[in-house]
Structure formats: C-alpha cells, structure tokens
C-alpha cells in the first residue's frame, strides 16, 4: 500500500487552471521531490494534498484511505503534517511551547482542560526528543520570532514532527537560506529520511538539495505532470531541460 496516492487531480480558480490531471504515487519510506519552474502549480498541489482546499476533480488517498473530502485537521489526525513556503509558526511563543502544542495534539489532549503530572512529563520528554532531532534543543527556551531564519524553518519542521506523522510535506524548506543554513536543513531532512524513516514529499528549488536527497523526482510544468523518475532519469530528460531553460532552447 502506498503512503500517498493522488489520482488525476485538477484545480481551477475561476478561469485559471492551476493543475491539470496530475497523478502521483509515493511509497512508504520514500523521499519524493517535486520540482518545476515558478507557477508550475507545486504549492497548489501541496495545498490539495494537505486539504487547504479540495480539488476540482480527482481523488487523494492517504495510507489507503480516500481523504479527498476531509478537512485539513482530519488529515493531520490521520498522520499528515506539512510546513509552508512562508514559515508558519507561533512567533510569540518559545520553541519549546511551539512544539509542545503539536505533541499535546498528537497525544490526544487537544480538548483536555487539565493535564496530569505524569502526562505532562511524558509530553515534555517527547518535545525534548523532537527538539534534539531538529537540533534545536539548545534554543528550546528562546522565542521563535527572535530566532534566525534557518532556525525558524527548523522549528516549523520540528512542529510538524511533533505530530508524529507518517507523511511529511515540506514546502521549500530551504527557501531564503544561505549555503550553511541550506546544508543544515538538508542534513536534517536526510536524517529524518534515512535514520527515522519518514515518508517525505518536498518541494524544492535548490537542485543540489533535490539531487542529493530525493529517491524520486516529479516535475510539474504549467500545471501538468512533465516527468517523473529517479534523479538520473530527470537529469537526462530533455523535456525537463527545455522547461527549465525556456521553450526556445
């Protein structure tokens, strides 16, 4: 059973067709990169998968279950977590508090008006584990809004991890980063994939990161699926080269 099975989805906004008949299957434990020129529909595709809005046509199955009609929070409950192209965090809370909210939700305490000492310790242990994984344990008690850009991106990933997801959707995790920060985030993603065996789908512009990390690559162009294959296949694909270099080439 595949972790994610997207069949023939299209998305129209008024007269604009943002996505046309795109299908994609991601196996459990796979790291899939989605690439494509600006305006290719990558983020729209992510928004459909994560449930920000429903597709115009087509179906989305997650862990063998049809989630096309489910709202975003239900998909999170089933084990899907995502980050955003523009970092979405709780800036006025500390790193620890940011991650704790996710850990409490994953623990099923969302509606609880109290929490016992034992449960609280268990949650704190999980938060510390997650922070260590994201290499943020030394910054746990800093306000997220005051961290460097790269650490904020890492904190957002840590929040997603705190939900203990089966599928991690990362929208341009290295956006706006320098070389050192990019390297650190790429290493974090590699650890999550190789060591912790997360299934990850990632949108990325930095081709070094993509070719370094991805098991398979999906290329979108102007809302259509252009190519799919291993990094070697994609590097050799002429249609992909044409899309990136301009159609005249």
């Amino acid at each position, binding site marked *: 059973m595949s972790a994610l099975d997207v069949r023939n989805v299209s998305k129209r906004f008024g007269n604009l067709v943002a996505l046309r008949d795109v299908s994609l299957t991601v196996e459990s434990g796979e790291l899939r990169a989605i690439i494509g020129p600006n305006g290719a529909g990558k983020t729209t595709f992510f928004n459909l998968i994560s449930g920000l809005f429903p597709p115009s046509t087509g179906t989305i199955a997650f862990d063998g279950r049809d989630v096309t009609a489910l709202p975003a929070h239900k998909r*999170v409950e089933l084990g899907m*977590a995502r980050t955003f192209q523009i970092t*979405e965090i709780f800036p006025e809370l500390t790193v620890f508090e940011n991650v704790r*909210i996710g850990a409490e*939700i994953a623990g099923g305490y969302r509606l609880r008006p*109290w929490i016992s000492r034992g449960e609280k310790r268990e949650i704190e242990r999980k938060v510390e584990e997650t922070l260590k994984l994201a290499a943020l344990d030394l910054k746990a008690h800093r306000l997220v809004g005051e961290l460097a850009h790269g650490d904020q991106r890492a904190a957002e990933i840590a929040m997603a991890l705190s*939900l203990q997801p089966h599928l991690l959707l990362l929208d341009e995790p290295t956006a706006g980063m320098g070389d050192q920060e990019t390297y650190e985030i790429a290493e974090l993603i590699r650890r999550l994939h190789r060591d912790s065996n997360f299934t990850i789908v990632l949108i990325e512009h930095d081709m070094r990161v993509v070719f370094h990390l991805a098991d398979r690559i999906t290329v979108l162009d102007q809302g259509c699926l252009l190519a799919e294959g291993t990094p070697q296949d994609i590097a050799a694909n002429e249609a992909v080269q044409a899309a990136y270099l301009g159609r005249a080439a």
Partner: protein
Amino acid sequence: MSAQTRKLVALGAIWATLAFAPYWMVPLGGYTALGTRVLVLGLAAMSVNFLLGFTGVLSFGHAAYFGLGAYGAGFALKFLAPSTPLSLLCGMLLGGVAGALLGALIVRRRGVYFAMVTIAFGQVFYYIAFQWSSVTGGDDGLRGFSRQPLDFGLFSLDILSNTNAFYYFVFVCFALATCVMAFILRSPFGRTMIAIRENERRARFLGIPVERHIWIAFTLSCFFVGFAGALYALLNNFADPRGLHYSQSGDFVMMAVMGGMRTFWGPLLGAAVFVVLQDYLSSITVNWMSFVGMLFVAVVLFFPRGLLGFIRRNGES
C-alpha cells in the same frame, strides 16, 4: 528576583489588594460598593479578554450575555425561589447557553465580520429586553427582587444590608471564576486557544479544528460573562436593559484593551480605572465619558500593550 518569585509576589499583591479592599478603600475616599463594582465589571472584562486576548477573537456583543446573566438572576429571584446561589446559577446558564447557541452561528466569521455579527445578535437581545415590557420591565428594567441572605445551615450571612459581607461574597465568586479561567488557560485546550490567536493557519495544520475550538472558547467566555452579569444584578438588585446594549460591550472591550489584553489581570486593572474614573468624574460632569475616552486614546497610543503590559515590561527591564 527570579521571574518565578516575581510572579508569585505580584500575584500575592493582587490578591491581598482585593482581599483587604473594604479596609483601604474607605480611608482613601472610596466606598465598598465601588470595590464590588470593580470586581464584577472586572470579571466581565476578563471574560471578554478570555476570547480577545487569548483566542484572538473580538466580540463586540458580550454585553448581551452579561445582560442575560443579570436578567436570568433577576427572574430566578423574582419567580423561582428566593435563593442567591440559584439566581447565580440561572444567570450563568442563561448567558452561557445563549452564547453556545449563537456562537455556533458566529464562529465561521472572522475579524470585522465576527465583531459585526456579535453586535447584531447582541442588539437583538437588547431590543427584546427593551420592548417586552410585560416580562422584562422594558425601559425601567427588571425590578422587584433583591439578593437573599446566604444560608449555611448553622448560620446565615446577611449580604443584603451588610455591604462588606456582600463584597466578600462577590470576592469569593470572583476568585472561583478567575481560578477556573486561569486553570483552563494553562491546560492543553488553553494552549490550542493561544495557538489559534498566534497563527490560525498553523493551528489548523497542527490538527486543531479551529472553528470548534473558537466555539468552545466563545461558549466558556459567555458562561463567565453571564456569571458576572448575575453578580451585577445582585449588586444593583435590578437588571437594566442598557446592560445588554452594544455600548456596554464596548466598555468591556475598552477595559480589556486599556488594562492590557495580552495579560490575564490587565482587564481587571482596566475595569478599576474605568469604574473609579466614572464614579469620580460623573459627580463633576455629565461628559465624563469624553475624559475616559481621552485616557483610552492616550493608553492605546503610548502604551499599546495596555497599562499592565507597560508596568510588566518596565518591571522586567
């Protein structure tokens, strides 16, 4: 002093100030009923702030549930049974249940639209109270009831004529309500409220059904404000239709913002400033509200985090 001890000292100071209010207020030229008013309106402002400051949702219609609490308490005393605890329970239930029902319709809206819808529903209750004279007393308000002595079996406590005793009764009610409020805010559910305030999209993608959580917070806040309204009816032995008017909601929001809406105790300070100024200025001029308004503008311009937010920030640095 560490942050923890400073917090404990501040808390101790707040409770001590409130606990001894009848003793220090009178020498300073105040009177006990003024302190009672501060507690009751402070509790209402804190209830509004439970939504505004901790869920990030602005209700401009909380006077409706405050007023319903007052009428609920009045009806219970007048028609049901001469029992003060029962009247508080009835007032709280009337405000809370109305909030739960209407909240279900309101929570899908956001920002200005949310505020407008809360005003609209609030005004519906105002006009009902104003027009349905045979039941509510109309413009004259609901009269003909008074708070009853508290019966503890072995002895009973006269809270009607003994204003100090009534102050302490309200103080205990206030303490209970604020403890419950603080307890909820420190719970996992309370943290989801803060998550929604901080970043609604992130909250949604952390698996929080945002509308449902706002509805729960709205309902809880209406129970608290209904409780405050019931206490207000006991304080005045009277329920006023103007207590449901949106200008009263505005006063609550003003108290919360003036005191500091990101702080738990700010609205109480805001209410104290508001009530004391109103009491003092209204004996000098009928235009007292313009002075309160000027103070409000000054606070918003120069202390955007409110009076308590300003004090706290300066205390830290």
